[in-house]
């Protein structure tokens, strides 16, 4: 049975309800509600400051953004051979044999230039940073079990994909130092539209 409003409420607000509303909209209500000691003021105007400060341990547990220079990459390493095995188990059904594409995008193979009629926008031809590859695999792949790969497995898959694109040797394990230092072929192919220079025509 659907809840209905009690008939008493239809007669108009009770004095108690009015008192409660006054309490809630008064400037002091944040303190009354008992939350925190971090309340601040900006001149005469109260400013809410209801966030909880994190202690160093909590900060250390925060996810680390991986930056294009390799900052934030975890320790560990993986090999091309391990990556090939993982790919055949977890990735090939969507990305196709050798990363040539399927229901998911092409990762390797095509070499048609970006300036041509049918450009290949795969990792080797198009992606500007190799760190992006590790980060994306770690956070989102495989899509049926995101976040399930260990750092070592992510390095291995990254190594294999880079090797398929001719950007990493077959016999060298990949780690944070190697990945952060890798210069991708299309690294300088992007023009930032920020800072803004007004509308692009067209």
């Amino acid at each position, binding site marked *: 049975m*659907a*809840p*209905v409003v009690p008939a008493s409420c239809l007669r108009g607000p009770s004095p108690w309800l009015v008192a409660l509303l006054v309490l809630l909209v008064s400037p002091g209500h*944040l303190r009354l*509600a008992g*939350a925190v000691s971090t309340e*601040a003021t900006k001149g005469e105007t109260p*400013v*809410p*400051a*209801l*966030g*909880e*400060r*994190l202690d160093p341990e*909590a*900060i250390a547990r*925060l*996810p680390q*953004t991986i*930056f*294009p*220079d390799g900052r934030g990459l975890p320790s560990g390493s993986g090999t091309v051979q391990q990556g090939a095995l993982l790919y055949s188990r977890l990735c090939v*059904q*969507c990305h196709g044999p050798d990363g040539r594409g399927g*229901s*998911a995008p092409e990762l390797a193979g095509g070499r048609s*230039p*970006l*300036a*041509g009629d049918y*450009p290949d*926008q795969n990792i080797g031809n*198009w*992606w*500007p*940073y190799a*760190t*992006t590859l590790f*980060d*994306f695999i770690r*956070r*989102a792949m495989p*899509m*049926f079990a*995101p*976040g399930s790969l260990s750092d070592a497995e992510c390095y291995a898959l990254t190594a294999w994909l880079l090797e398929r694109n001719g950007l990493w040797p077959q016999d060298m394990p990949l780690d944070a130092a190697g990945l952060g230092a890798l210069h991708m072929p299309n690294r300088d*192919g*992007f*023009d*930032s*539209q*920020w*800072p*803004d220079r*007004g*509308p*692009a*025509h*067209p």
Partner: protein
Amino acid sequence: MGRRRFLQAGVGALGLAPLVATGTHAAWTRTPGAPFSNYGQPAASESGVIRWISANADVPGNGVSWTPLQDLVGTLTPAGLHFERHHNGVPRIDPALHTLTLHGRDARATRWTVAKLLRYPLVSRQLFIECGGNSNSGWLQEPPQAAVGWLHGLVSCSEWSGVPLSLLLEEAGVARRHGWLIAEGSDAFGLHMSLPLEKAFDDCFIGLYQNGERLRPENGYPMRLIVPGWEGVLHVKWLTRLEVADVPAMSRNETARYTELLPGGRARQFSFFMEAKSLITRPTLGDALAPGDYVDIAGIAWSGRGRIRRVEVSVDAGRSWQDAELQSPVLPLCFTRFRRPWRWDGRRAVLQSRATDATGYVQPAREALLAARGRWGYFHYNAVVSWAVDEDGFISHVYV
């Protein structure tokens, strides 16, 4: 427009012709009506007004659903019809467990629960959100045949309410306004995007309400980033982490995707603004006109740069243009409705609309857009859209 969409009319014609029931003699005046409802739903006879879904068969949560622009009038999109773009499904988030953490360069790491954020001063703004990939079928060599919403419906407009991001940045002690803010969502894709700190301080907010009610799950419940006027992917849904940094993260969706390859092989990156665009939403493909019909050519226009200043309509493939009437209020970064009355004379016509925004920028012709941006840009397609009316009164999508 004189007629119902012919597909719908066709279905109706298969049934028995209904008796004309008017005023107080209608059957529904002779029996008590339905009781109250806790949450109202559209009329049963409007059940065809839905989002159409295009998703990856291997990953059903990776795809889009389109706002049926051809069925909507006004400037606000019902929450249940707001377009969706998810990369790996809609997470089912327990709001009691969800938090937002702000940390990084200059910031004293701070965390808010949803309940705490709901107590901050909330700002409300009517804002469009448009996917950077909206209208990308315009890059195809042949014009795809579908109603306007199924080609251009990755744009919607809502009243969003939430906590100004500047309040949270100041609370965390972020003083320098130059740099980047990396926003991360709590979904199975962990979508993360970098945006300039200047914008974050300027007008971004943590969206908690949509059209007066809490966000729908598919729109980011319990919170999403609102980045007024900028491309949809930056409005990170299910927002859980904000990191201040000196450089962008160069995430997958700001490098390999949501960048625009140009002729010559270079690409645009961080094309944040959604430039001016307009669409005729009625009539649209699926409508049929009869000679002599009065036709209310109407639609929507918007710009990520500010207000819409002008919308022009052409019925002769752009050889001549007339100003359309703009419906007030004309708000910045919001859908603006336009209309131009017309009588169809039975001869072939090509209907177009063209928006000009407050900066003076004029929505480009398709030919001009392709000349500048080639065939592989994929994102930020905002060219003039053309609809032909043939001699039989049927409407089709054309390139001119």
